[in-house]
């Protein structure tokens, strides 16, 4: 089953690459502005041999990972705290709904004023965008706690901390993992965008330099790198999710089929 899926995935990608080769070759779009796959592959190989590329990759991953860790930690703590405190939930509900849809990139001028083109500017945008993904999922997860289980735990005299540990957390964990997976993807997008627009060091800044230099195949090669990175991050997040939720019926069910 798995092998067949992987095969299908690979053939889909192969067809896409072939299309990328054919469209400019057939003259549907101008080769100068959309180079065929083979030329992008050439540029990709050149990038891999360049030390500066690996530094840029490292910068982007640093921004991504730090931002994600901060956002996930803050999201889980705030989510649980808000959910178990009715007053806080009432007080923050409308504020959260007001702040959540604000696009992170709209905060770029603020980030530049505060931190210039440093890593901290990237972190500001990454954390702002991915924090909400986690927070909202945690809040949904806490709402999903079975009232009977909660009451049972209370009647057995479990304290607040024990109830969070044994009732709330296991119920919320699948939601938290979904939030983390979403946040991981959003964090990568925002890290690259911030570098691209602000000029903070990383893959995004490298894409921007390729653009201003009229180095079209190099630019697409770097875009491909960010795509691959997104793919890897998603696969990684799914693996973590499966491990963390191995006991949960949604994952156990998958294995049984």
């Amino acid at each position: 089953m798995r092998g067949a899926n992987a095969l299908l995935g690979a053939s889909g990608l192969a067809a896409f690459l072939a299309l990328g080769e054919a469209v400019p070759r057939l003259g549907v779009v101008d080769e100068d502005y959309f180079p065929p796959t083979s030329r992008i592959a050439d540029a990709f190989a050149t990038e891999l041999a360049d030390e500066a590329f690996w530094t840029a990759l490292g910068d982007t991953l640093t921004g991504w990972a730090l931002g994600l860790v901060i956002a996930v930690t803050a999201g889980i703590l705030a989510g649980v705290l808000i959910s178990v405190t009715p007053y806080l939930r009432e007080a923050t509900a409308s504020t959260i709904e007001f702040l959540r849809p604000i696009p992170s990139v709209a905060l770029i001028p603020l980030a530049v004023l505060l931190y210039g083109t440093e890593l901290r500017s990237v972190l500001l945008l990454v954390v702002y965008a991915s924090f909400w993904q986690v927070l909202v999922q945690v809040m949904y997860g806490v709402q999903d706690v079975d009232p009977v289980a909660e009451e049972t735990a209370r009647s057995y005299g479990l304290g607040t901390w024990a109830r969070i540990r044994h009732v709330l957390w296991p119920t919320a964990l699948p939601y938290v993992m979904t939030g983390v997976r979403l946040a991981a993807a959003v964090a990568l997008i925002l890290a690259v965008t911030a570098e691209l627009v602000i000029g903070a060091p990383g893959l995004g800044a490298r894409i921007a330099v390729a653009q201003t230099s009229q180095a079209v195949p190099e630019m697409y090669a770097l875009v491909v790198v960010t795509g691959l990175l997104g793919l890897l991050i998603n696969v990684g997040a799914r693996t973590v999710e499966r491990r963390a939720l191995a006991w949960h019926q949604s994952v156990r069910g998958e294995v049984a089929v």
Partner: protein
Amino acid sequence: MRRLLIGLTAGAVLAAATACGSSDSSGSDDKDKASGGTTTIKVGVIPIVDVAPMYLGEKKGFYSKRGIKLSLTSAQGGAAIVPGVVADQFDFGFSNTTSLLIARSKNVPVKAVANGVASTGKQKADFAELAVKKGSPLKSAKDVEGKKVAVNTLNNICDTSVNESVRKDGGDPSEVKFVEMPFDQMPAALAGGQVDAACVVEPALATIKSQGGTSIASLFVDVSPDLTVAMYFTSERYAQKNPGMVKKFQEATAESLEYADSHPEEVREIITTYTKIPDTLLEQLTLPRWPAEPDRASIERLAELGQQDGLFDKAPDLDKLLP
């Protein structure tokens, strides 16, 4: 529940207390900027041909012999550089002259300290041109009346200069439709017919020419043959606090500009270290001129045109802006 709340409150108070503690202790670490007689200064630049003298000057040691270590950061245009300098994220920055005039007219405390880059002064052979694609019916600046012209930023140096070219050619600039897009997208937009002409700089200009496109006007030359297109600047606060450093930066930059102006081959070489301009384009680039000093008369002209085009209500005070 109550115990949890007490615990959390205690935690929050503790966190606030430690935060205060750390900000107290970080108040006096400004000294580590200067070490061993050299001072690191942060300069916000753009990854384009124009700032080559800075990279070249650093390599040649024009800065280090004055005790300056340059930390060059490539930001993406004025959107990051002007606020970066004003908010002290950068000590110096690079910006086009009109942007600085606009900033000054709004009382943003910027102060130009050194020349940046200047027009070559040669018709149809400048580093910025009003370009059209191969086979375009547009032959001179007047022909862009009623047509779409791409500029990198609306209400800035590109459109005021295009207006001047059109006016000098006997046309009506108010008829021109300006469209905003980044320089690097202009070749494709011209080829695809989304715009009819473009105010474009190198290396995008070389791309257009390599595809058979031509220039129909040299817009910067039309404003003034010696037009100071961009300058290095700092904030008024930095200039007041560090007059010695500003003076050293001015001297080193003037030396770098002069050196770059007389060594075009070294300029082309240094460009490959901070851009990805392909070799095929590199040889075709029209390099700008790098005079050591800004040309005041040309900046006055640019200010007049800006006022005429409504970029600012009253002409900015050049004495406050210029070094």
